[in-house]
């Protein structure tokens, strides 16, 4: 009973903080806002830790909190499932959230929306916890949409910026496309299993493994489990930004950096990964769905990595690396290595949050310039940020002994062992991805922290491809009376074209950030180094997840085979030094060192030599253009056509006003008979009498 109150405390503590900071954001002083929200998240984090210890002692829980709705034979409840999987997520979410809360004190200190921001991130923490703690699909969907809402609010946090309010609308709508599939998947689950409770559905699912449903008329049906899993995965593609629903994530960088770390790197975007792992008993029943998952993941992992190579905005480089890493996790899911995916989710949460927060620290130090071409040599001025960034980058590229190494290497090994159709391509993609990741990560690292100091120069590399747009943005800002609304990266780097207003003045030097910023960096750097070494043994091979994740050992023996190759964390790291993966990563680092520190002229030459490829990458494979023209433009065209043609033209024009006109016309004809002249009436009468008489006579 006591534990159940503790379960309830975990999501409710941040919610209370969010409500206090949100409802009274105009009256309470700043310390109250960050005080209550940080207290709420800290309580939540501590409670999660107690629950973790309890779960490790073998006490899992699955039960309702309250009955939300009953209808017909169906019951929908709000309830919690506390097991090894959810408690892991709870720890990651509350810990990263706590770090981000503290960091925000420093990052948002000049922003007039300070209290509102704290309210939002606490509300996000609540929503995310409801998502991961859910024991049923209804609540999962609730959390799913709620985190989407907060993401929407936070991307558009600086609501006067045209790019921000474009990006948040785009993020919401693209996610809605995913949710469209998701809710249909939930509908199929309810139709076939009669419940949305996880445990009950998982118990009934194996019996439905061979069921086929006829979706496309007569002819051969579709496997029920394939349909359900693919539809659910469409939801995951939206939330976890898998190709082709990835387009919202790079734009989400319009939001303040703390939320890029918390929502768009560490937690929310991994909701899709978590969901598939949670649904492992369903996905295990459909090889087709797993193939679909692995191919989508592989495409995302490789092709989004390429885009990271040409980005010059520090946050966007990290954003594309997030996309690519999400692809790795998805590949692991497709290879039935769910625990490996969750493992990578966890290590990634730490080192990616670290990289984002470090990027934010650099942005503060650079006075809101985000263009890495304007940086260089920062290691001397920002030592803590430099070292923690180096740790994050090393973890990201999979340097042996670092956290990212254990999880990423396990993914690559798992894919190698997988026999799911598409795993061959996926293996190639994740291998090539290692090189690409190392290359763009260290390109950024070298450009920011090493080499010549390029800041403080008056001539900035402003205005590249979207230079004309820059003027409109500039004008919009000039018109904005309330200049105080602009926060730290309100005017960010050259990508949006007004870098010239920001950055360091000539002669000015970057400075290290205050302790509220660097402390979270240090606290995140620790797990970025050690968590992999500590956790890989128990988490992947020690039966950590017990019944929380289900793998069909017969059909997909990947984890079992992986366990044969595993001889301890230390041996794994030393063995890695002899593998291709390690040398690929090293080659990537070496190449970026050579190109960006030794011979900076070569990248420029390559860029002009391979202009078509550069253009393709610069336009992000034209996904955005296509969506804007085809979907957004198409929808408006259809809408206008139906409105003007259908409603105004056909229904009102022809039928409604047409019938009115017909009545009018009829009346105007009849009117001729009402002349008011007595002789007309008399004449008509005589004609009538004559006709009648004629009829009468001829009949007789």
């Amino acid at each position, binding site marked *: 009973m006591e534990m159940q109150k503790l379960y309830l405390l975990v999501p409710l503590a941040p919610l209370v903080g969010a409500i206090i900071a949100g409802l009274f954001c*105009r009256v309470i002083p700043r310390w109250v806002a960050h005080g209550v929200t940080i207290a709420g998240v800290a309580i939540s984090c501590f409670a999660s830790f107690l629950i973790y210890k309890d779960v490790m002692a073998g006490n899992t829980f699955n039960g309702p909190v*309250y*009955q*939300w*709705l*009953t*209808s*017909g*034979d*169906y019951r929908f409840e709000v309830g919690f499932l506390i097991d090894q999987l959810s408690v892991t997520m709870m720890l990651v979410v509350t810990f990263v959230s706590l770090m981000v809360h503290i960091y925000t004190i420093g990052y948002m200190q000049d922003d007039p929306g300070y209290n509102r921001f704290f309210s939002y991130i606490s509300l996000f923490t609540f929503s995310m916890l409801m998502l991961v703690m859910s024991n049923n699909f*209804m609540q999962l*969907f*609730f959390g799913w*949409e*709620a985190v989407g*809402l907060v993401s*929407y*609010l936070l991307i*558009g946090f600086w*609501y*006067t910026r*045209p790019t921000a*309010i*474009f990006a948040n*609308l785009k993020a*919401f*709508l693209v996610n*809605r*496309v995913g*949710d*469209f599939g998701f*809710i*249909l998947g*939930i*509908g*199929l689950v*309810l*139709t076939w299993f009669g419940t949305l409770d996880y445990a009950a559905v998982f118990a009934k699912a194996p019996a439905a493994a061979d069921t086929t*449903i006829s*979706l496309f008329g007569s002819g051969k049906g579709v496997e029920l489990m394939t349909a359900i899993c693919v539809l659910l995965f469409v939801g995951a593609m939206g939330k976890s930004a898998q190709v082709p629903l990835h387009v919202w994530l790079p734009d989400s960088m319009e939001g303040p950096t703390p939320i890029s770390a918390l929502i768009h790197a560490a937690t929310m975007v991994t909701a899709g990964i978590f969901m598939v792992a949670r649904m492992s008993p369903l996905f295990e029943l459909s090889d087709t769905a797993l193939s679909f998952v692995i191919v989508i993941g592989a495409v995302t992992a490789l092709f989004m990595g390429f885009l990271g190579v040409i980005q010059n905005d520090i946050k966007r480089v990290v954003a594309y690396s997030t996309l690519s890493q999400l692809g790795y996790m998805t590949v692991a899911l497709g290879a039935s290595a769910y625990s490996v995916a969750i493992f990578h989710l966890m290590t990634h949460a730490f080192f990616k949050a670290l990289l984002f927060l470090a990027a934010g620290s650099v942005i503060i130090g650079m006075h809101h310039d985000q263009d890495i071409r304007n940086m260089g040599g920062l290691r001397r001025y920002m030592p803590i940020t430099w070292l923690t960034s180096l740790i994050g980058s090393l973890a990201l590229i999979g340097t042996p002994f670092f956290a990212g190494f254990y999880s990423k290497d396990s993914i690559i090994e798992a894919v190698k062992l997988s026999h799911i159709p598409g795993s061959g391509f996926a293996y190639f993609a994740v291998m090539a991805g290692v090189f690409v990741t190392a290359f763009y990560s260290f390109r950024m690292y070298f450009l920011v922290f090493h080499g010549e100091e390029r800041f403080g120069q008056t001539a900035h590399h402003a205005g590249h491809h979207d230079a004309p747009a820059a003027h409109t943005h500039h004008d*919009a*800002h000039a*018109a*904005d*009376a*309330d200049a105080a*609304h602009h926060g730290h990266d309100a005017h960010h780097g050259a990508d949006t074209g007004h870098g010239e207003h920001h950055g360091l003045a000539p002669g000015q030097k970057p400075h290290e950030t205050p302790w509220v910023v660097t402390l979270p960096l240090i606290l995140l750097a620790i797990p970025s180094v050690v968590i992999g070494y500590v956790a890989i043994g128990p988490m992947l091979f020690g039966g950590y997840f017990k019944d929380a994740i289900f793998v069909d050992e017969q059909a997909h023996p990947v984890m079992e085979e992986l366990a044969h190759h595993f001889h301890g964390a230390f041996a794994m790291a030393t063995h890695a030094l002899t593998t291709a993966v390690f040398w690929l990563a090293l080659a990537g680092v070496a190449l970026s060192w050579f190109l960006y520190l030794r011979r900076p002229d070569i990248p420029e030459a390559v860029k002009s030599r391979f202009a078509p490829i550069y253009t393709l990458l610069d336009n992000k494979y034209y996904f955005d253009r296509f969506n804007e023209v085809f979907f957004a433009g198409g*929808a*408006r065209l*259809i*809408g*206008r056509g*139906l*409105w003007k043609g*259908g*409603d105004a033209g056909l*229904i*009102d024009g022809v*039928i*409604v006003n047409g019938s009115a006109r017909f009545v009018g016309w009829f009346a105007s004809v009849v009117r001729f008979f009402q002349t008011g002249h007595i002789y007309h009436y008399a004449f008509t009468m005589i004609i009538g009498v004559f006709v009648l008489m004629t009829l009468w006579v001829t009949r007789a």
Partner: protein
Amino acid sequence: MSGTPLLSLAIWVPILAGLVVLATGSDRNAPLARMLSLLGAVAGLLVTIPLYTGFDVHTPAMQFVELRSWIPRFNVNYHLGVDGISMPFVILNSFITVTVVLAGWQVIESKVAQYNAGFLIMSGLMNGIFSALDGVLFYVFFEASLIPLYLIIGVWGGPNRVYAAFKFFLFTLFGSLLFLIALLYLFLASGGSFSILDWHQMPLALNAQVWLFLAFLIAFAVKVPMWPVHTWLPDAHVEAPTGGSIVLAAIALKLGAYGFLRFSLPITPDASHELAGLVIALSLIAIIYIGFVALVQDDMKKLVAYSSIAHMGFVTLGFFIFSAMGIEGALVQMISHGFVSGAMFFSIGVMYDRAHSRQIADYGGVVNTMPKFAAFFMLFAMANAGLPATSGFVGEFMVILASVKHNFWIAFAAATTMIVGAAYTLWMYKRVVFGAVANHHVAELTDINAREFLIFVLFAIGALGMGLYPQPFTEVMHSSVNELLHHVALSKIQ
């Protein structure tokens, strides 16, 4: 049924209050008229509360029944009663009346007494519609309720109000005539009864059922409104004053949908099954076609009016897939739409009162000058887009899930509203509220006052309460909906 005649009170308290308000006469007594109207509206709401607290959820039978002879020669009775389907709407209607009186408080300055009296009388008449169990009584209330709304649009409306009022009146009158014919046919066929409950039990040949069904369909489709007889609604909304729009969206649109449950399904069950495909097709057209049309509207009221039509498409869809969750989801959607669209029209009214424009292009950056308003508007926009934890989600969720069971592709088509609904609502929100201050009109806006704040809070309690805990709303429906489904499953052909 002994005790106080609660339903009579729910009908006559607002009507009498309306007459008293009317007696205050000219605008010299406007403050008195306002106070009396508020008192009347609150009293009208209070007398409906016992309908919920005293409601027996275990029986599908009519409750709080009152039966008196009215015109004995034609066997017409003053017969009232509510079940789980109609009871929530009596309360919703009385609730909306309170918000409408408050919404017009500082805004309506000419003919105050007449304006408020119109709403109070209409409120009583609409309670009459939801509780009438006699065909003639129903018809009288059904038609009489048109008159106040017609006057409200025609007198206090916008520049094009006469055209809109006429269009509204003619559309609905056209439907009503067919409805009257159907009632007379039923009177004759049943051997001289106007009791709706008798008609439910009466055997009918399929041929007769089909004709009756079509007559009902046309009558109710105009009210709902369903595609293609929906074009009066955007015009009516655009011209109506804020209060008129709130009542129109929150209550008047529900009358047609209620008619389907009270007349079409139980009286002509076989025809309902035969022609369900037609209604489902029209519903899906409403959801998809109207969604796209809403996307390109330049006028905020038109946009929300079109979105109302799309939302009502979910209601008719839910009815005609013949499952408990479908019908209950549709009923939930009806109640939710009362809160959400009422609040949306009120939000637009708040802006209109200040800047005197409903054009999206005339706004931009409203959040800078009206942050409190922007927060409430965000809540209701999200509810309109069906975000979980708001009432807008519950009905859509139930209807989509229920329709997956009926036919996957129907659900597929209906679920597109997840995308399109979010697109038109949030795109409007973006253009109106977000961004830098667009012009000096926006710069001069003042944030909401205490009265407007109170109205928003009332709507927010409805929208959030129902979204977080819908069980109390659906609990009362179960018995009646199950009984209805049971009844509809039985053939009436003999």
